[in-house]
Each structure stands twice: as C-alpha cells, then as structure tokens.
C-alpha cells in the first residue's frame, strides 16, 4: 500500500457511527516494546537506529494483521503527509519530528499502526471507533504475540517490559478513550472531573495528547500507571472510570436541559448558523462549532445518521486534511477561508435542526 492511497482511504475513526459512539468517539491501546541488547532510540547511534528500524520493519510487515500494509520510513514522507497521519492519530507528533532512522507500519484499514524508533523501539497501537476497550486489547495482544515470534523483547521478570522512560515500565500499556464531553465543559465541571479521575490513577489530556488543548470538548482519558497491575486489570479499571464519566456527562446534559433548554438550543442553533454561513473559521472555532452540532445530534435536534458526518468533519477540518483536499499550500489565513467554504458546502444540505422533538427527552 502507498501513502497516497492510504491518505485517500477513509480512516477507522470516520467509518462507524452507531449510537454507541455518542460519547466515546474512539478507543485506543498502545504498547511500548524494545529489543533486548539495543540502546533505546533516544540514546542509540544513527547506525544502530537504522539497524533496529530494518529489523522491526521487516518483522512487523510480516505479521498477519499487517498484510499488505503501508511500511515507510519517516524521512520518505512529506510534511503534509506526516501532518495528516498525526491528525488521524496514526503517528505521534514526536515521531513526525524525527529526522532519520524512524518509521511506521500502518494496516490497510488504518486500525493498526506500529511506530518504530519513537521513544521506544516499538510503539504498537490499535484504534477502534467507539467504546471497545476489550476488543481493542484483544486485537493488540494478538499482534504483540505475533511480533514476539520474530523479535526478542527486552523483558525483566520483576519489572516487566523495559521501556526508555520508567513511567511506561511493566505492561508498557497505555489504554485510552477519546471522549466528547460538551455538557461537562458548558457546566464548568471538567476541572472537578479531571481531579477525580486523577485520584483514580487516570489522566485526562487534550485531543492530541500531552500538552494539547481540548478544543471541541474532546478529551483523552488514559491510565497513568503501568507497573503493578495486569493489562486486564487496567482495562477493567479504565472501563469503569469511563462509564462513570459517561454517566456524569449524561446527567450534566439532563441538568442543562432542565435548567434552561433555550440556552443550550441557542448555542446549537447559532453553531448551525455559523457553519452554514460563516466565511472565516479557525481550526479551533470549527471544532467547537462541530462539537455543538454533535451534541445536537445526541439530543435529537439532528438525525442520528448525521453523527458520522460530524465525526468525519472533525478530522477533515484539521489543517493537514484541508490542505490535502485543496491540493496546494496555503497560509493559515487562507486556510480559515477555505475551511469556512468547505463547511458551508457541507452544511448547505444538512438536515435543518428540529428543536421541538428533543424536549421530550434526550438520549
């Protein structure tokens, strides 16, 4: 598979739109693995990095889930291609900044990706749309076991999988869910949620991980610790934390509607108006407007079937995707015009909001 055919294929994230994905947009599990006897990527000499890259690329591409995958070195990708992969969560920002001796293998359906020579020799990742922690873990566990046939992992019976950073030691696993939490944000309850989640040993981050902002009211919730607990234990605990966040979000929505439904409908209606008629939209404004439309879908203002349109636009309104669709290079200012034009087109034929139905009760 080539990078251009991969980019032109819709990703796992935009494909499903069942009501199960209402609050949890995406589930992701990643495993950090290293090869015994080799320096970690950050300390390895260029020749060692190249050697590890070659060994890993070959082993990963030969595994069953990676049949006919895209296998490529980072320095073979253009800046735009890298940015698109970051926006699809298929590579990290750190990897996209790597100069040489780094690579990635991505499955045809874009559900599996293995980064090579990021912080660790291997960062194995599986993405699934919606709330599917157990399925995602099963899938990544199988891929990991298949790779173990060909690669000698650095492992200690007491410390588990050995990773470049001690915060990933043990299982090397980070399981996370991308959650859409507009009502908790509107009700200013996110800070409280973040604190409570931290106390349970989980971390809340923005859409693109560490240090990124939470535009569009989209957050990533993941486990903080990796040692002293089994993978299944972590998955189970994270699952129950996610369920309780879902419950809080649903309660917050109910309360917002009971307190002043007009206020929330006004926000949704205005967002719809701007998306239909706006002429200058920054990436973060577009995210926030789309987030409100998505809330509208959940509340029954728009048909359920429109949720997948929003989820697709949440990705396509990102700078890299926008630039790719328009086939050219643009200044950020021009991008904002193009983004607004694109969204006007999408929303010209969008179902009109229906605010009467929804007062019977949101989902």
């Amino acid at each position, binding site marked *: 598979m080539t990078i251009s055919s991969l980019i032109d294929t819709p990703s796992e994230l935009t494909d499903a739109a069942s009501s199960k994905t209402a609050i949890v947009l995406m589930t992701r599990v990643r495993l950090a693995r*290293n090869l*015994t*006897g*080799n*320096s*970690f990527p*950050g*300390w390895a000499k260029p020749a060692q990095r190249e050697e590890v890259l070659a*060994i890993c690329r070959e082993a990963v591409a030969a595994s069953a889930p990676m049949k006919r995958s895209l296998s490529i070195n980072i320095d073979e990708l253009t800046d735009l291609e890298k940015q698109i992969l970051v926006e699809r969560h298929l590579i990290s920002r750190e990897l996209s900044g790597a100069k040489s001796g780094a690579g990635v293998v991505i499955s045809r359906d874009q559900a599996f990706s293995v980064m090579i020579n990021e*912080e660790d020799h291997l960062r194995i990742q599986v993405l699934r749309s919606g709330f599917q922690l157990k399925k995602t873990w099963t899938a990544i*566990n199988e891929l*990991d*076991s298949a790779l*173990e*046939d060909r*690669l*000698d*992992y*650095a*492992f*200690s*019976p*007491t*410390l*588990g*999988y*050995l990773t*470049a*950073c*001690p*915060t990933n*030691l*043990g*299982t090397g*696993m980070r399981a996370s869910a991308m959650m859409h939490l507009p009502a908790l944000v509107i009700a200013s309850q*996110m*800070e409280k949620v*973040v*604190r409570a989640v*931290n*106390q*349970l*040993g989980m971390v*809340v*981050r*923005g859409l693109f991980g*560490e*240090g*990124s902002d*939470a535009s569009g009211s989209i*957050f990533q919730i993941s486990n*903080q*610790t*990796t*040692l*002293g*607990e*089994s*993978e299944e*234990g972590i998955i189970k605990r994270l699952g129950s934390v996610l369920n309780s966040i879902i419950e809080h979000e649903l309660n917050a929505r109910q309360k917002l509607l009971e307190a002043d439904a007009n206020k929330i409908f006004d926000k949704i209606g205005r967002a719809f108006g701007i998306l239909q008629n706006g002429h200058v939209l920054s990436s973060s404004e577009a995210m926030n407007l789309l987030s409100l439309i998505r809330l509208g879908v959940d509340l029954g203002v728009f048909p359920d079937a429109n949720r997948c349109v929003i989820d697709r636009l949440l990705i396509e309104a990102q700078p890299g995707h926008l630039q790719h669709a328009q086939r050219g290079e643009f200044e950020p200012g021009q991008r904002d015009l193009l983004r607004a034009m694109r969204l006007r087109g999408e929303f010209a034929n969008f179902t009109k909001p229906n605010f009467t139905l929804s007062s019977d009760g949101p989902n």
Partner: protein
Amino acid sequence: MANPLKCDLCTKPATVHLTQIVNNKVHKVDLCEECAQAKGVTDPSGFSLADLLLKASLNPEPAAAGVRCEQCGFTQTDFKKQGRFGCPACYDTFSAIIEPMLDTMHKGTAHTGKVPQKALARKSLYDRLTKLETDLTEAIKSERYEDAARTRDEINQVKHTFGQKPPR
C-alpha cells in the same frame, strides 16, 4: 522559617506546594513559580505528577554519580538530563536509583501482567546453547573426549528444538 523549602527541580525557593493523591498514595512536590509554570502545574488537564516526580528525584547522589552502564555507556547525569534510560540493561545498572522511584510512580513495584513466553523460552534455549558450546570447547581442550561427545549431542538436541527459528 530559617530554611525555606527549595524547588525540587532547581534551587530557587519553592512557593508552589502541591499534593496529589493517586491510588491512595500521597505525592508531594515543592516548586518555584517558574518551574511550576513550565511544568504546567497550573493547568490540571495537562499535568502529570508522576512525570514531574521522576525528574525531581534525579538529583545525583555523590556515591552513585560515577556509575556508567557497561552496555551503552549511559550515566546518571544523562538520566537526569533526559529522564529516560539508555538501554534495557540500564535498569540493572541503575537499580539503586530506579527502585525507590517506582513506588511513587506506579501502582506497584512488581510486574503482574503479560509475559513474552515465546521470547523467554527462546532466550533460555539460547543461553543454554552458549553454555554448552563453552563446555564443549573446554572439554576438547582438556582432552575429556567422552564429555565432549555428550555435550555435542546435547548441542544438537537444543539446536533441533530451535527448529526453524534460530535466535538472532
């Protein structure tokens, strides 16, 4: 206060005192205003105390400062600078530094998760092969030909177990 608290990351006086409870364990850090800002302590969504504690506990102690990893040449000063290790063997080299940190950083200090059975089985076979080959050389050198023959048979057996997958 005669001895004001110093920042855990630099040496300036600490003005930000943070307590976080994770998994019923209390973690405390003292920071100066600049470090607190730089580490995003004021932004609860992007802040992980574990990462911070990691760096804070890296002030080198004179006794261990000269230790160097035999495998990759990494030193404790490098660890302090990068917050990451040089190679898997560093965990043995610097076990005295890392072990006390694990308790505050993680839920437990011992791995209870997945074990790479196949990779470990391969490694133990490989270790056995290496030992047998040394034995064989020695047996031949000291003219113990019966031992040598037996060791050679064992080597063949181990090689047979490897089958199609010899270790790298």
